[in-house]
């Protein structure tokens, strides 16, 4: 593969990583803790790309040395000629795909489509008995905390409390909609969804971000990974997508 093309691939990929990291779009794909490593990666890719570009320009200026310098990077031409010949050359082209996907499509955070496909909802929490909810009326909780308490704690800690949660609308095929949020352990490939059936709320389109205030009510099932707890809403506000779409 030509050195100048190599340089452009590295620069495009480095630019793409820099762009998602700079703009917070990286939070659609990975966890916040990755940020410094992504900045370092973007810097390395841009530096390697820039130095390869300098090599390529130098190569153009001194045509006498072309053959010798070219020999440095024509890796496949040498010793492993007989096995898969052009391999290094064509595989590097594929690195354009993620760069182009970021620049041209900018795939959004996962949403209702991913949640609706899941069958389990409530992973058993680490502690059998959750500590009491912090003070506050309503009290801000995460969806997974709410579901953990409602399903595996028989809702004991949620009784007589008003809670407030932020998530997106996922239409329930059986009627109404779920308040949903995805959480990621590492990257969006491992996202796990959490759902809560919302009662007493107007129908909203899928993937609308909302903050819902309400109270837990029994009936969604307990002690089962498939249980979807129920929240009787007292207010539903449409809100902008949070900076970090996952919890």
């Amino acid at each position, binding site marked *: 593969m030509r050195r100048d093309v190599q340089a452009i691939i590295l620069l495009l*990929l480095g630019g793409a990583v820099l762009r998602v990291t700079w703009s917070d779009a*990286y939070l659609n794909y990975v966890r916040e803790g990755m940020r410094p490593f992504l900045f370092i990666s973007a810097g390395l890719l841009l530096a390697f790309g820039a130095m390869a570009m300098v090599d390529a320009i130098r190569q153009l200026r001194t045509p006498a040395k072309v053959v*010798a310098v070219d020999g440095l990077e*024509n890796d496949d031409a040498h010793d492993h000629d007989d096995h898969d010949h052009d391999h290094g050359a064509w595989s590097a082209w594929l690195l354009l795909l993620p760069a182009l996907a970021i620049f041209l499509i900018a795939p959004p955070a996962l949403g209702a489509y991913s949640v609706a496909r899941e069958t389990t909802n409530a992973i058993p929490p680490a502690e059998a008995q959750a500590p009491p909810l912090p003070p506050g009326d309503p009290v801000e909780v995460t969806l997974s905390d709410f579901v953990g308490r409602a399903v595996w704690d028989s809702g004991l800690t949620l009784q007589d409390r008003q809670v407030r949660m932020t998530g997106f609308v996922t239409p329930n095929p059986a009627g109404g909609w779920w308040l949903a949020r995805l959480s990621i352990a590492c990257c969006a490939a*491992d996202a796990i969804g959490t759902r809560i059936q919302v009662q007493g709320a107007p129908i909203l389109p899928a993937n609308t971000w909302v903050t819902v205030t309400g109270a837990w009510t029994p009936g969604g099932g307990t002690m089962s990974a498939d249980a979807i707890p129920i929240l009787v809403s007292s207010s539903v506000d449409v809100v902008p997508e949070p900076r970090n779409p996952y919890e």
Partner: protein
Amino acid sequence: MTEPTIPPLRTSARYRPGALEYLALGLIVLVIGQRWLVDLFDIPALQTGATVFVAIMIQATPFLLLGVVLSGAIAAFVPASFWRRVLPKNNALAVPVAGAAGALIPGCECASVPVANGLMARGVTPAAALAFLLSAPAINPIVMVSTFVAFPGEPELVLARFVASLLTAVVMGWLWLRFGKGEWLRIGPRTHLIGSSSFHTFRLTATHDFLHAGGYLVIGAFAAAAINVLVPPAVMNTVAENPFLAIGAMAALAILLSICSEADAFIVASFTEFSSTAKLTFMVIGPMVDLKLISLQAGTFGRAFAVRFAPTTVVIGIAASLIVGWVLLT
């Protein structure tokens, strides 16, 4: 010096008329057609696939870069004699030493492929480098801690993971020593990557390894994204209910999902229906064999190597998980 001049001329003649021009033209067409592209990706399934694909690439890029920087540093700054000094001369002994060394270096599977390649290129016996390749992503401190966090109250699972992974890595190293053939492995003496200075060598090796391995990572990420969208999660739950199918299913899942070893414990913890031994199988196989790794290994060491190494690792990994699971988890 006469020989190497021939192939570059040949490749030059083939590539000169246009790689750069085609690239520029392609980019212009894509930028003009951007609106149409965005509309195309408005379908939820395609959009989800694109997000998962980009997510795996973004997550893996820093780790792959760490790996190529390490392999570049090994090539440029660590003299070949160093490895002869630290590793036992006896190859059968070098394998467990290299395997155990994997516990010291925090890296993931994407990083370990170029590092193992760099080690082999520096004269480390392939059996020892392969034991390191398998153990490093599976038993390093970050993975052990994340497993501990993912399974609160089950420290025996952390121990089982460590023992079963190291066992698999060492057995694979010994198997290679006994049955492996050098011709299956493609490790070019990388004379073409020796630059005018140590730093130049470092840069050439790192750039070459990144471009080479990165393309294969793209294939793996693409496959994993496709499976994420195409296989309904309900299918997995049905399988989990059969204890005999479950272990095979967990191994298959580990291969298909291609999750980084730092994160796989959190994923497997969510498969509450499965037995501890089935979960252990997932965590032993995942860091050693998965779609992106098979692709990376095929790209780095050659197809002849990958078609033998990956299936053998799966068999040994399942056997080690069953034995260790039976001893430690029941």
